[in-house]
Every structure is written in structure tokens, then in C-alpha cells.
């Protein structure tokens, strides 16, 4: 006799919640992408201001990711490998930018760069300006993106057995040679994922940037401006292009970071 398998109600709850989440995320986005007409999209991509803003968004987020890579990698390695007094504190500090309201980040950085602060005065002397410059945008984006890079890469380093490094050292390689010949070779995928996470976070930043540099305009600021000045219809095409371009870039990076079939 075949007994019918009873399906637990929890299964249906899970199916329902999955559908809700997917629709909740995808419905507004697809609607927004589908609403602008082809003509609107074409017009906006020929608009040099739009092109410039999207280009600037990608450039500044890329720079933020590059800086995170350079200064975040050794830091993530330290967090993954060493135990030291106050490590938990340092780990919470790196998470701070994730929870601080975005405009507050902008205000904090602007507070340092102003004339009333010694750092601002010093920067003025050497010719670095934060307010209303690309430098300012990159600074802000690095601030908000860095935790995502560090946390991702730290997990990547932790996944590499420390024994491999021990063996390398015992064979005569110094700490830095070991890092280059073993650790880096095994962790580059997680660094790439970290770069994706960091620049994804950076490209979506608005609140902090709008305080530090309304001009030059990055795409989210331009979308906001078009919305306030001309209404929803004019902001949508720019948003669609920003989403499209970022999607393609992230997809490419993701493909690079996928492991080959014969490797595990």
C-alpha cells in the first residue's frame, strides 16, 4: 500500500514567504524598468549629463573599491589570523559605517574637512578639497564601502587553512612571500567578491554624498534632482540605465570570481 507523504504546514509557510520576498523586491524594480518608453531611454542616454553622472558613479565606486582593496586587505588578514587585545572592539568599529545614518557620515566627514578643523586647514594647505569634489565623493564612498570589503575578505582568509601558511614558512618563505605565493593566490576570489560588495554599496550611496558633494553629480544625486525638479517620469530612465550598467559590471565580476569546475 502506498501511503501518501504528509506535507508539513511549515513547508507552505516557507513557500508563501519566499514568494512574498521575491515579489516585494522584484515587482517595484521591474515596474520601474518597464515603465519608461524606449524613446525616453534613448533620449536620456544621449544626454551628456546623464552619461557623465553614470560614468562618475562607476568611477568613484571603483576608486572606493580600489582603496578598500589596498588598505583593507592587510587589515582583513590581520583580523582573520591574529588574536589581540581589543580585537572585538576593532571588529565593531569596522561595522560602524554600516549602521550610522548616511547623512551623518557626510556631516562627520565634512566636519573634518572644514576650515575650523586642523585637518581641514592642513588639507587646504596641501590643496586637497573635500567639499564638492570627486575626492570628497570617493572619501565618502570608501567610508561606507570599506566594511563590506573587509568583512568579505576576512571570511575568505579565514577559510584558508593556516597550515598552508605554516608549511610555506617552514620551507623558507617569509611572511610576505607566503602571503603572495599562497594566501593571495587562494583568496583572490574572495577579494573580487569583496570588491563587488564594496562597489555595490558605494554605487548605491546617496545620503552621504549629497551632503559632501551635490556637484559633481553622481547618478543617484542626478536621479534625485530630476525627481524633485521634473517628477518621476524624468528620473526613471536615468535609474534604469544606472541599474543596467551596474548589473552588467557586477555580473562580469561575479563570473570571474566563480571557481572553475575542476577546482574546489
Amino acid at each position, binding site marked *: 500500500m502506498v501511503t501518501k507523504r504528509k506535507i508539513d504546514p511549515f513547508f507552505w509557510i516557507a513557500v508563501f514567504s519566499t514568494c512574498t520576498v521575491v515579489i516585494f523586491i522584484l515587482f517595484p524594480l521591474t515596474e520601474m524598468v518597464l515603465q519608461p518608453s524606449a524613446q525616453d531611454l534613448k533620449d536620456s542616454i544621449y544626454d551628456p549629463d546623464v552619461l557623465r553622472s553614470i560614468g562618475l558613479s562607476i568611477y568613484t565606486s571603483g576608486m572606493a573599491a580600489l582603496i578598500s582593496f589596498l588598505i583593507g586587505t592587510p587589515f582583513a588578514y590581520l583580523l582573520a589570523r591574529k588574536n589581540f587585545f581589543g580585537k572585538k572592539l576593532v571588529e565593531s568599529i569596522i561595522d560602524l559605517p554600516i549602521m550610522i545614518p548616511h547623512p551623518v557620515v557626510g556631516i562627520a566627514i565634512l566636519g573634518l574637512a572644514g576650515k575650523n578643523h586642523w585637518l581641514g586647514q592642513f588639507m587646504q594647505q596641501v590643496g586637497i578639497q573635500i567639499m564638492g569634489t570627486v575626492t570628497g565623493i570617493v572619501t565618502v564612498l570608501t567610508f561606507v564601502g570599506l566594511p563590506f570589503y573587509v568583512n568579505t575578505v576576512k571570511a575568505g582568509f579565514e577559510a584558508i*587553512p593556516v*597550515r*598552508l601558511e*605554516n*608549511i*610555506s*614558512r*617552514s*620551507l*623558507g*618563505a*617569509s*611572511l610576505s612571500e607566503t602571503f603572495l*605565493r*599562497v594566501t593571495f*593566490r*587562494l583568496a583572490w576570489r574572495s577579494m573580487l567578491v569583496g570588491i563587488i560588495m564594496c562597489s555595490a554599496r558605494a554605487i548605491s550611496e546617496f545620503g552621504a554624498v549629497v551632503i559632501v558633494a551635490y556637484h559633481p553629480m553622481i547618478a543617484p544625486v542626478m536621479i534625485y534632482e530630476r525627481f524633485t525638479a521634473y517628477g518621476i517620469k524624468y528620473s526613471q530612465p536615468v535609474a534604469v540605465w544606472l541599474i543596467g550598467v551596474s548589473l552588467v559590471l557586477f555580473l562580469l565580476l561575479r563570473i570571474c570570481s566563480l571557481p572553475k569546475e*575542476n*577546482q*574546489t
Partner: protein
Amino acid sequence: MIEIKDLFIKFPGFALEDINLSIQDGEFFMLLGPTGAGKTLIIEAIAGIVPITGGRILVKGKEITRLTPEQRGTGIVYQDYALFPHLSVLKNITYGLRYHRTNPNTSKKRVTWLMEQLGLQPLVQRSIHNLSGGEKQRIALARALAVNPSVLLLDEPLSALDPNFREDIRDLLKKLHQEVETTFLMVTHDFAEAMFLGERMAVLNDGKIDQIGPVHEVFHKPATPFVAKFMGIKNVFHASFRNKKARVNNLELHLQSPPGENKCYVAIRPEDIIISKNGASGNDINSFQGKVMGITDRGLYFEVSAGTGNVIFRVMLSKNDFFKLELQKNKDIHISIRSSAIHVF
């Protein structure tokens, strides 16, 4: 020579204390102990991987306590092989060569020789994925020995292998040790491995060394109940002594010679106790009437608990003997123990 003096390593909840070892050049030294006794810690301290709290480590008279791992010239082979997954077999083996200033011809010869000895030539260009455990461990050995270290540290190199590979690698280790000048220091929890490979051994118990000596001496003359049990001696009893006699509970055992001062225990290997139907007699034989208390089938042999008075002996019996004696629970039997088989400590 490797000398470890008053090594002290403290971790939260565990400490390795008073470790003093001196290992001769070219010796095959075994470090024996149960899981969690701190064996790996000693090896990693010698390699410079774990920071030590106190003590000194000298190799060939040179203090290496404060040197970085790459300055020490110690090779390591781990239980899980720890091969570089992104490198081919050959690149794994030759990884360390560039850091050692030897004539390229000499090192090439050495690598070729090692690969011959370890049967690795057919694998040279392969990636290390999809190799068997035995192959991986042979690569790990070749990699460590390629740079001609003064000491090879082996951390349970046989434990993760299938039984058939285990014997291969065990024999290889013995052969390699005879052919190279390197000192071998191997950690294991298996006394049979230690007996087969080692010349001397140290038994580690909860962060302290219980006994150091030639393997056969430790095997036959353990110094503490812990070492005795670790060496597979299942009969260890508290005893009191008078003249050439030992008393365990109410049982009197004749010894071969007077026990000497400060002895508290007797130990008898389970394979040294004889069970028979009619008993044996003789000057140097202790013989008792007893009963079979329990029988356990251990696969290759039977373990029989045989009781006399209030003492229970654990006896190892071959399957053949077991069936000949037609043993069953509560059967009356004779237990005989040669006085020379009784170890007093």
C-alpha cells in the same frame, strides 16, 4: 641534536610544562600521547609556529627560540597533507627550493631522487586534486625533504590514511629515514607505529612528559600507570611488596627479583597471561584457579576477563586457543603468569 629545555607554553585552559627533550642527530624520535596531550604543540613550537611562554629550543647547538619559522630549517608534514591546492605536484615539491642557496644541480638531483624513492614520477605534472591520501602524503614528504631540513617534524602522518596506504607510508618513512641524514620527530597516538619506526620515544600525558626512553624499554617497562595503559597493558594493579612477593588485594604473586624501593604497581601484558584447563606448574610460574567472567570478540583475537579471588585479569587469546579451550562464561579455568612477565614500578 635538538634540545628542548624547560619548554613552557600556556594557553587558556591548557598548559605544556617542563618539557625537556634531547634528540640525537639522525634519530627517529617518537612523541606519543593521547589527543589533547599537547604533542602537536611541541612540534609547532620547534617549527616556530606557536609562540612559547618560556624555555629554549636549540638545534645543533644553535638557539632557535626567537627565530622566525623560515629561519629554522625545520620541515613539517601534517596529518591532512596541507598541500598547496593551487599548485601542481611538481610545484608543490619544489616550492621551497628558491629559498635555499644550493647548487641548482644538487637540488634537482635531490628532488629527482626523492621522487624516485617515493614513486612520484608518474604524477609530476598532475594537479593535486583527485589524488589518493597515500599519494598526497608522499608529495608532502617530498616537499618537506626537498629543502634538506635539519629536522623533519611529522604530525600524525599516518592517521588520516586508509589502512593499506598506512603500511606503505610507514615503510617508506622507515626507508627514507635510513637514507637521509635528517632527524625525524614524529607525533603519534599509536604505540604500534612508535614501536615499528622509533628508536626512542617520549610519552606525553596532559601537557607533561611521563617517560622518555628507548621504545622497547618504554613498551616493556612503563614508569607510570598511564604509560602502562597507553602501551596496551591492560592489567595494572596497586600492589604492596614483601621480599620477592607482590600482593594485589588477596592475591600473592611471585616476582623474578626483589622489587626495590618505592614501587607501588604491578603491570602484566594481556598476552602474557595464560589460560589453561589443567594449570601449569613450575618454580617461576604463578598459577591460580579462576573463572571466566566475560568474553569480548575483538576481531583478530578474543579478550577474556578471568577472575580469581577479587582480582580480574584481562587476557588476550588467539581465536585458535580460544576455541581449543572451549571457553564460556563462568567456566572454571587456570590462570598462569610467569614471574618474569610481571613488571613492577
